[in-house]
């Protein structure tokens, strides 16, 4: 049993003692009542400051998450390291066999974990270290591509292929000079010309060692649906389908990640940017992507009608208005002692709804506060 301030109450908490109306001794709510939002309003209506709550039973899911989160953080780090190894060794053709095995294993791990908990994994994409951003970017693009592939109903084999292709899409960057791809700030025209060759370099690397789709993704992930891309200016269905998926994931990931020379965009800003350039993407694919991401994109901070603030961690198909959140702030805007998971699609939460998405400056402020307050929370 512990004492909690009335404004920190959330629906679903269970009273450990009767709540009495002050100065009357009349029972407002009996012990062991499971609180609803309505009851919380009733309590806050009276001059009651604190009530006693039974410590919540952790849900299986939460228990599962406690176990999974560190493992996933580790996988992500490991993935980045493996990708670095595979990619940097790829030039040495003798090692391609060994690379293939490593890659398959890695994508297998990623697939397995995306299946278990895509939101956890996607949140990991926010853990940033820009010194190895090329590799971290590869892992993130792979995760986002797999998520899109899942929406498309891809089989496990197809997902695997897509995952590998996405991991290797930027491999040609290695052939451009290190100074170029690690550079902060804008590139000179000469450097830009060099960077623009990375799809061709990548395809050369991979040709003969990898399935056709993987080669095509490396070659075509900068092609755009309307023909405005490079290197060949391919158009529409002339672009490999998986390359179209990776193109979308690539742009989205680039927007929401931090780079040395600019701040990351909020998910909302990233979506807006993609919508603004929508001719560049396959309209069918874009629609599928946006319908899951557009209303409340994963990673965005939202405020509920109760005033509580949380981050969107999962959006289920056909329920874009009822995502799963991690709540960080109570109804008065105070940081919670412990982040709380809240599934808006659960029947018991139908009285709650998202009032608004935080604006970009608010998002940045809140994101920083949350990262400082819960450094281990993903």
């Amino acid at each position, binding site marked *: 049993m512990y004492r909690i301030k009335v404004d920190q109450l959330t629906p679903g908490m269970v009273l450990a003692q009767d709540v009495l109306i002050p100065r009357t001794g009349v029972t407002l709510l009996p012990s062991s009542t499971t609180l609803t939002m309505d009851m919380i309003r009733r309590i806050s209506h009276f001059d009651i400051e604190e009530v006693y709550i039974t410590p919540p039973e952790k849900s299986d899911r939460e228990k599962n998450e406690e176990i999974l989160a560190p493992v996933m953080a580790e996988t992500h780090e490991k993935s980045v390291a493996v990708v670095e190894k595979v990619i940097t060794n790829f030039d040495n053709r003798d090692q391609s066999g060994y690379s293939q095995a490593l890659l398959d294993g890695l994508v297998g791990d990623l697939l397995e974990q995306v299946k278990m908990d895509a939101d956890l994994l996607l949140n990991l994409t926010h853990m940033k270290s820009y010194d190895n951003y090329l590799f971290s970017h590869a892992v993130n693009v792979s995760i986002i591509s797999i998520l899109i592939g899942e929406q498309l109903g891809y089989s496990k084999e197809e997902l695997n292929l897509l995952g590998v292709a996405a991991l290797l899409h930027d491999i040609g960057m290695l052939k451009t000079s290190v100074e170029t791809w690690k550079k902060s700030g804008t590139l000179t025209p000469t450097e830009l010309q060099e960077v623009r060759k990375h799809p061709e370099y990548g395809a050369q690397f991979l040709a003969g060692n990898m399935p056709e789709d993987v080669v095509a993704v490396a070659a075509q992930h900068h092609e755009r649906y309307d023909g405005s891309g490079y290197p060949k200016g391919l158009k529409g269905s002339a672009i490999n389908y998986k390359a179209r998926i990776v193109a979308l994931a690539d742009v989205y990931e680039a927007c929401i990640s931090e780079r040395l020379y600019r701040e990351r965009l909020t998910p909302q800003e990233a979506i807006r940017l993609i919508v603004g350039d929508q001719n560049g993407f396959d309209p069918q694919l874009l629609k599928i992507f946006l319908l899951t991401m557009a209303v409340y994109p994963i990673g965005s901070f939202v405020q509920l009608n109760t005033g509580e603030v949380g981050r969107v961690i999962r959006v289920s198909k056909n329920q*874009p208005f009822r995502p799963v959140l991690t709540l960080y702030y109570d109804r008065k805007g105070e940081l919670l002692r412990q982040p709380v998971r809240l599934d808006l699609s659960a029947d018991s939460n139908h009285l709650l709804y998202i009032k608004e998405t935080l604006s970009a400056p608010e998002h940045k402020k809140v994101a920083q506060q949350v990262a400082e307050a819960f450094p281990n929370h993903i």
Partner: protein
Amino acid sequence: MKAEFINPFVGAAYDVIKKVAKVEATKGELALATSPIRGDEVNVVIGVTGDLTGQIIFCLSEATALSFASKMLMNLATDSLNELAKSAICEMGNMILGNAVTTLGERGYFCNLTPPALLIGKEVIVSTQILKFLVIPLETKEGRITINVALQENLE
């Protein structure tokens, strides 16, 4: 029915429609109707329990529903009333009532809501236990949304 517990619904409807469907609404002529009421093509039914009991029914044409849903879905044109569009319309009903219930609570009426039910059809007729309905038509440039309110105070 007291104005005191009707106004929060009208106010909430204005606010929510303006915010999510991005159109201004103007109140048409109020009328009193008797159960059963004839619905429109798309009808959202939400039950109220607690200090007030009864039903709120939002009625709108399919075209209006689609245009609201499309705005809520970032203008990704929804050409048919698919699952997504339906979830958008239900969410709008939820937001209006959630907002209204908060205002009612501030005025001392504590209410709970049932999850919204969506009725779609051309000749939907709804009968309720409470016989008198207040019919509040709201006009927008995307079409009309009618709010039917049948509520009574629970006098313990």
